[in-house]
C-alpha cells in the first residue's frame, strides 16, 4: 500500500504528489528504459514521456496492489521505448549465423549478480537485446513482441534463440576472465 495514497492525491490534482512519485520511481524506470535504449539522454527522454503518460492517464487506473501499479508503469515505459525504436527503425534483425552454436548454461547465469547480467545484456546487439528483454526479462510472448516491433512471431523466436546463444557465449568468456570473482 505504498503508492495508494500517492495515487489518490495525484488523481485529485496534487502536483507535489507527482513529484514524490517521480522521486521514488524515476531511478527504477530509468533502468528499465536503459535496457532498451543505450543512449542515456534518449532513455531519459523516454522515461519522461512515460511519466507524462502515467500522470495523464492515472485517472483511469484502478489501484489494487503496488506490484500491479509498478507493472502498469513499466508497461507504459516499455511502450514509450518501443515507439522510439519503431520511429527510428533501429531494431536491426541480425542473420541467424551471427551467433555461434553455444549451449545454454543456466548455472553460470545463476552465479552472476543481477547488475552483471544487466551489463551483459546491454552489450548485445540492439535487435537481440530488444527481443531478449521483452521475452525473458519483461515476460512478453512472441506474438506481442511481433506486434510491438512489426516483425513476425517466428522472427522473434529466432532472434531470441540467437540472443541466448550470444549471451551464453559472453557469459562463458566472462566466466573465464573473472573466475575468481565469480567463485566467491
Amino acid at each position, binding site marked *: 500500500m505504498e503508492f495508494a495514497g500517492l495515487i489518490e492525491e495525484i488523481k485529485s490534482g496534487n502536483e507535489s504528489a*507527482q*513529484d514524490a512519485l*517521480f*522521486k521514488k520511481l*524515476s*531511478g*527504477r524506470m*530509468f*533502468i528499465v528504459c*536503459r535496457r532498451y535504449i543505450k543512449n*542515456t539522454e534518449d532513455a*531519459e527522454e523516454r*522515461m*519522461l*514521456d512515460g*511519466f*507524462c503518460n502515467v*500522470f*495523464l492517464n492515472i485517472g483511469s487506473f484502478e489501484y489494487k496492489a503496488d506490484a500491479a501499479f509498478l*507493472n502498469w508503469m*513499466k508497461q507504459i515505459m516499455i511502450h514509450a521505448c518501443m515507439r522510439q525504436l519503431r520511429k527510428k527503425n533501429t531494431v536491426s534483425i541480425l542473420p541467424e549465423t551471427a551467433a555461434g552454436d553455444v549451449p545454454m548454461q*543456466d548455472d553460470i*547465469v*545463476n552465479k*552472476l549478480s*543481477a*547488475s552483471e*547480467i*544487466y*551489463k551483459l*545484456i546491454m552489450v548485445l546487439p540492439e535487435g537481440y537485446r530488444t527481443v531478449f528483454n521483452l521475452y*525473458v*526479462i*519483461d*515476460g512478453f510472448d512472441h506474438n506481442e513482441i511481433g506486434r510491438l516491433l512489426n516483425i513476425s512471431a517466428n522472427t522473434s523466436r529466432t532472434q531470441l534463440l540467437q540472443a541466448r546463444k550470444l549471451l551464453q557465449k559472453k557469459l562463458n568468456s566472462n566466466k573465464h576472465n573473472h573466475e575468481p570473482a565469480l567463485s566467491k
Partner: protein
Amino acid sequence: MSQHYQNKETRWSQEVAELEYVPGLAMPNPADSLRKLHKKLRDEKRNKRKIFFMLAAACFTVILFVPAVVQQNNQPPAPRQMASPNLKKTIIDPPIAKENKSVQQKVREPQKEMSPVPPPVIKVEKNEPLVILPLPGNILPTASDSPALNPITETAVAPMKRKYPVVHINSIKTPEGAEEVIDDIKNPFRRILNRPALPPWAVPVYSSEHVINKNKNSQN
C-alpha cells in the same frame, strides 16, 4: 508475467527486471529531469487545450456557414453569360423566372374574368363641348367600387387595355355658344373640359395614353 517469473530458471531475469540501481548507469540529474517533466506536462496540457479550441472553432464555423450556404443555394441563380460563336453575349434566363411569371399570371387571371367597372356613360347632346379622358392606368376600380370582386384583384395593378371613344381636341373648332357642362360630379372617372366636341359621327378612337400625350402636347 507472474507465471513467467515463477519459473525457476528465470529467477535471475526477475532480479534484473526489479533492479532499482545499476552502478554506473544511474540517472544523471534527477532535479533537471523533474523540471523537464513539469515542462512536458505543461506542454501536453497546452496542446490539449489548443486542440479543444481548434475543434470548437471548427464546429462554430460549420454552425455559422452551413445555414448561410443552404440559404444561398435556395436563392435563384444569377443569369449566366455565355459567349456565343459570333462573340455576342447571350443572356439565359434562370428557370425559376418562369415560376414568377406563373405567379403573376395567377394574380392576373381573376382580373380577366372580372367584369371591370364600365366607364361612365355620358350623355352627349349635339354641339356639347365634352371630352372624356380617363386618368392613367393605375387608377382602377377598387373593392369599394365593386364589392363583389375577388379579393386577389385588389393587389393586381395593371393598366386597362380598353379603348375609349375620345375626341381629338386639335381637330375641333369651338362652336359658338359652347358652355361648360358638369353632369356627374360624383364619378371620379369623369373629367369635363371646356372644349368643343366633334359630332358623334366624327369621333375618332384612340387609346387613353395616346390621348393624354396628345393633350399634353396641345397644352404646351
